[in-house]
């Protein structure tokens, strides 16, 4: 019901194109998945250290590469990294899609409710404020030893999310909620800059390094925490496709279709909050992907139907993240570029092109 309604909101006059696009979809999905697999393979075989392909295959298939360090680099560096990139990219992309729908705002991203600012505050407290006592504080939560920065970021993100949830349960108006989220972000951001202001330069550098973002920080030891949260969040979001489609038509219309608005909104915030919090905690504040990937997914498939766009955004997000990480590794050189610079620098033109080609953007948000 709602899906056909959403599809019907595609630009007028493109009905034929739309039907053609519809027929193309399985093929498009197959292509995207093939490209994703290729990107994963590329990401495993390219890196700062030159490892022959045969050694990589041997390491991946349970054998030993000709050097121990190489086996380790493939299995304990590249494999968790590409997995992290895929999960983080998917999480940010789907999270961004949901936020854009929830707020009917093409500029929304998973961090629009101040979650990344909360994570920054946690990290800033540990890195900047008072080194040792900060860690001691976290040790009280039994987390410092294992995760350090990630733990601090999770706690910060979690606290802000709790606050947002509390407010969301009291505010009916989503525009008000959007503003509250933005304000929370500003307030928490201000605390971070205060901390920065009173810190010693060496630590500020450490904080800046964290802010560059990275998929390489998640080890196998941390994966059992990171992966389930992200996958759980993705699954939760996937169940929301139908009510999301209804939301596209406006809240009152959705309500008349029997969508329980309050519950759906809460589910969206919890799902997106979990994913964004986990990604920020483990990878740093990764910008851009959350805004860009959903637009790319919508324009590729020429629809706003969430039964299509959720899986599409998931794949496109994972793909973009892996591609960005590949570029950040600057294959052939031994240096690395800051991930956040790469995502925006190489991603922005791609998204602009996609949006120029697809004129359905307005329709999705009107």
């Amino acid at each position: 019901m709602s899906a056909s309604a959403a599809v019907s909101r595609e630009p007028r006059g493109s009905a034929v194109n739309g039907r053609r696009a519809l027929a193309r979809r399985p093929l498009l999905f197959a292509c995207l998945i093939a490209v994703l697999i290729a990107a994963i393979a590329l990401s495993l075989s390219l890196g700062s250290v030159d490892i022959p392909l045969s050694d990589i295959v041997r390491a991946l298939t349970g054998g030993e590469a000709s050097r121990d360090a190489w086996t380790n680099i493939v299995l304990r560096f590249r494999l968790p990294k590409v997995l992290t990139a895929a999960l983080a990219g998917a999480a940010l992309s789907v999270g961004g899609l949901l936020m854009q729908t929830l707020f009917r705002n093409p500029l929304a991203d998973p961090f629009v409710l101040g979650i990344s600012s909360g994570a920054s505050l946690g990290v800033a407290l540990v890195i900047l404020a008072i080194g040792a006592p900060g860690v001691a504080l976290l040790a009280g939560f039994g987390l410092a030893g294992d995760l350090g920065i990630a733990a601090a970021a999770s706690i910060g993100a979690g606290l802000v999310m709790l606050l947002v949830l509390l407010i969301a349960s009291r505010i009916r108006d989503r525009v008000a909620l959007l503003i509250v989220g933005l304000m929370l972000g500003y307030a928490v951001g201000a605390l971070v800059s205060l901390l920065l202001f009173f810190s010693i330069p060496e630590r500020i550098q450490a904080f800046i390094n964290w802010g560059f973002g990275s998929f390489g920080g998640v080890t196998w030891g941390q994966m059992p925490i990171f992966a389930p949260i992200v996958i759980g969040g993705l699954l939760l979001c996937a169940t929301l496709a139908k009510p999301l489609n209804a939301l596209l038509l406006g809240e009152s219309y959705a309500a008349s279709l029997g969508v329980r608005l309050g519950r759906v909104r809460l589910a969206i915030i919890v799902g997106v909050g979990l994913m964004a919090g986990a990604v920020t905690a483990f990878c740093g504040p990764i910008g851009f992907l959350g805004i860009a990937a959903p637009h790319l997914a919508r324009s590729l498939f020429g629809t706003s139907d969430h039964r299509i766009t959720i899986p599409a955004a998931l794949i496109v997000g994972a793909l973009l993240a892996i591609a960005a990480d590949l570029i950040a590794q600057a294959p052939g050189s031994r240096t690395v570029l800051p991930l956040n610079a790469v995502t925006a620098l190489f991603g922005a033109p791609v998204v602009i092109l996609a949006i120029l080609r697809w004129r359905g953007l307005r329709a999705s948000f009107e």
Partner: protein
Amino acid sequence: MKFRSLLAALIVSIALTPFALFSVSADNLTESCVESFDATVDYFPEKVEPRFSEGWRVSYHNNYKVVDVLTPFPGAADIDAFQYVLVQCGTPAPEGFDDALMIEVPSGALIALSTTYVPHLDDLGLLDNLIGMDSGLYVSNPEVVARFAAGDLLEVGSGPSVNVEAILDAEPALVLAFGSGSPDYDTHPTLIEAGVPVVVASDYVEGSPLGQAEWAKFIALFYNREALANEVFEAKAASYADLTALTAALSDAERPAVLWNGYLSYADAWFIPGSDSFAAQYVRDAGGMLVLGDAPEIQDTAAGVPFAFETVYEAGLDADIWMPGTFGVTTLMDFVAQDERYADFAAVTNGQVYNFDARENANGGNDYFESGVANPQLVLADLIAILHPDLLPEHELVYFRNLPKE
């Protein structure tokens, strides 16, 4: 001191007699002013000259010194340089230095906006002049810490939002600040505008540890303490040279591999010090070899260069010693908890991980960046004791700390 000033005054008065055409006073006036000026007298018989520093120079005239700060920030051009004219008090200011700040010496009350000036002030017996700093949180000098605790020192902040009112109210004779080249961090433009006598002393721009330590001489200029500065610094330089001689003849095979990465390298980007950095110079002088030290990426730069973790992993796995430059870590267990892959490194297995936080205070202020900057001979001795324990068996580590297993 009193005797010295008396003597100096006596000599000056002798110099004033018309017959004493070639008379020269023996000492600089460290406490007093000239009472009757004689243009033919050299009022600064004790002089300093930078031997290692490249960021400043001084030219002496009979009753004034012209001091140039050539590199107020890294990469500064000629036009960015600052000039200061230090005039012996009680003598007339020279003409023709319209753009330079005139400062009477020996100067008086001082506000220091970097902890790196503190050890020099201590060495030169000038701590009594200190009336304030940017912050009391990160300083390590025990006397300064005590005076902050007693509420005797001002905290004025730094950068463009420095507390100008507090500084004006305190009426310092001299404010020492460092330049960054960025209006977001620079303090001196704000202070210059407010008419505060601020001197840009960017000691950190120096290319070598001895060059930075030699800024003791620069600070001495403002208090006519040249003699003491020479004595103190040359002793350190000689000690540094003696230590370097211990390791100079070591062959490459005898030089342990040292993995040294910059302050908290997060996840992917591992900062390896450039070949001109202090870390690289120290490791060279201590008879070691940096992991990735021959990489083309790090040649001829003092900056840290980011490498991918997997590159560092491959290159540093067998390193004998690891200097991770980290914080918030007490034991090897804490360290490995940051990233389980650290446990693969030989230096971790062998307990050869050293951190420079032996003298870190509760707020994260690290004496390595304070007295360590003024005492490169101590830093070098630490490193030699770590790399070649047999060469300095008696030495007890000052700034570095071996991370215990638990």
